[in-house]
């Protein structure tokens, strides 16, 4: 048993991979709770895809790809923030147009480079090939995201469930939304290095959604989501090592399996509660539906 655990750790690239998986899961899983509860899953997915042209352009001009992704991610987050503020076109339609257009631009640019295969790791991630310099950036962002979420906790929390009260007390809902989108852009750029453009949103949404099935408190939910994210990273990497499969896909599949287990657990707990407890006298306003 111990042999199974320690064998992959003999390789430096695997040790780095495990570290990146844990760091990325910290950033993704904490912000993921807000993304899930503010119904921003589509925005998260769109943001991950709109980063692609930035990555390709950075590759073409020989610039740092992480820097290119960051510039594209920040520009996209501000553009999405502006689109969602303007109500003349429905929010999901506008995001869908920008998301598809930017992703198509990325694919178009990739196909023009003539080295489509070289750039495939942008789409599916390359967690086992992270250079030391990038690891430092990932660590800094993974540390900064929870700290900033902690600092802006009450503002993010209030604007998530009662934007009217926020506006009444002078707290601009749009300002808080931009803060969240910028933090999301940073998170997505780190996650892309691990699982790629296509699967990044799963790393943000799935652990948070799984945690939301087991607790109704925000901070324990973030902690549980981080544990699920880190577990997915570690178990997924072991699975990728032993089954010789793509690491990004293995990590996301583990996330999905954890979500499925949580869904079954929640279903069992709910059934037990309903079976054991007498019906409430006044049930108006109760809402036990899962997300």
């Amino acid at each position, binding site marked *: 048993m111990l042999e199974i655990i320690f064998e992959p750790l003999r390789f430096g690239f695997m040790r780095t991979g495990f570290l990146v998986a844990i760091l990325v899961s910290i950033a993704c899983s904490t912000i993921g709770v807000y993304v899930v509860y503010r119904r921003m899953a589509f925005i998260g997915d769109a943001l991950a895809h709109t980063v692609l042209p930035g990555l390709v352009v950075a590759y073409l001009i020989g610039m740092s790809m992480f820097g290119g992704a960051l510039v594209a991610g920040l520009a996209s987050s501000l553009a999405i923030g502006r689109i969602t503020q303007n109500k003349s076109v429905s929010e999901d339609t506008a995001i869908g147009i920008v998301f598809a257009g930017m992703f198509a631009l990325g694919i178009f640019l990739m196909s023009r480079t003539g080295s489509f295969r070289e750039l495939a790791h942008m789409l599916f991630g390359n967690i086992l090939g992270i250079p030391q310099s990038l690891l430092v950036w990932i660590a800094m962002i993974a540390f900064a995201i929870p700290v900033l979420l902690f600092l802006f906790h009450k503002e993010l*929390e209030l604007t998530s*469930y009662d934007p009217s009260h926020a506006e009444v007390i*002078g707290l601009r809902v749009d300002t808080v939304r931009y803060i969240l989108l910028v933090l999301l852009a940073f998170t997505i750029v780190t996650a892309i290095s691990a699982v790629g453009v296509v699967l990044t949103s799963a790393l943000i949404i799935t652990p948070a959604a799984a945690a939301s099935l087991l607790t*109704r408190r925000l901070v324990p939910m973030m902690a549980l989501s981080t544990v699920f994210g880190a577990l997915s990273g570690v178990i997924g990497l072991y699975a990728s090592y032993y089954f010789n499969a793509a690491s990004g896909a293995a990590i996301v599949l583990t996330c999905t399996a954890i979500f499925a287990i949580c869904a079954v657990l929640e279903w069992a707990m709910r059934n037990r509660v309903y079976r054991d407890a007498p019906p409430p006298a006044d049930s108006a306003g109760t809402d036990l539906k899962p997300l």
Partner: protein
Amino acid sequence: MVIPYSLRRDRAAVAGAPAIETRHLRLRYPGAEQDALRGVSISVPQGSCAALIGSNGSGKSTLMKAVCGILRAHQGTIRIAGLPVGGCHHRVAYLPQRGEINWRFPVTVRRLVMAGRFVHLGWIRRPGPHDYEIVDRALDQLKMCELAGRQIGMLSGGQQQRALLARALAQDAEVLLLDEPLTGVDQSTRHVFERVINELIRRRRTVLAATHDTSVREAGYDVIFQLEEGELQESELQEGEHARDHF
């Protein structure tokens, strides 16, 4: 150090000014063909309990939202204690209709009530023991102590309204705007509201409650405004002391 959400937070109230005053207020929603409010002028004296009555769609909620700064009027003026909207965020508390809140969000009742303190804390600063003391007192006044640790979606409709009123108490607001506060709530919640609102009026707080229940005419409000299709139809000043038994 407090970093206020709005830089205009600490302006002093104008002495002797009405708690709420609107003049010739006009407001139109984007894309709408006609105004939702058409030249509405009302004046609510400080320390009074006023009712805003009218059928559904008459503009009551729109007027409430304009007064508390959620919607912007394109014509006319609004003054709260003599100051323009936004000049005194901490003075105004708004109880929205229950449908406007995401009750599934994972916050407890205590945390929701704590949101009443946020305007005093400003950006980043976290609540201290003094804030928790105020929150616990507000929960006690609304008989919500036992429910303080419950997720807000697990409350009944009446309990949710009580939690929102507790938040307004925690804010220590001088003007309370209540949008259909008692729609679909039980008798015990009505009694709690009646007691707390009477106590607030005794402390010279001002209450403006919107309701489509026209029987409030007998309920002992100090002032009654009737809105229909965005226009003020009637403004009625009632005389003497009343028991506000419709709260």
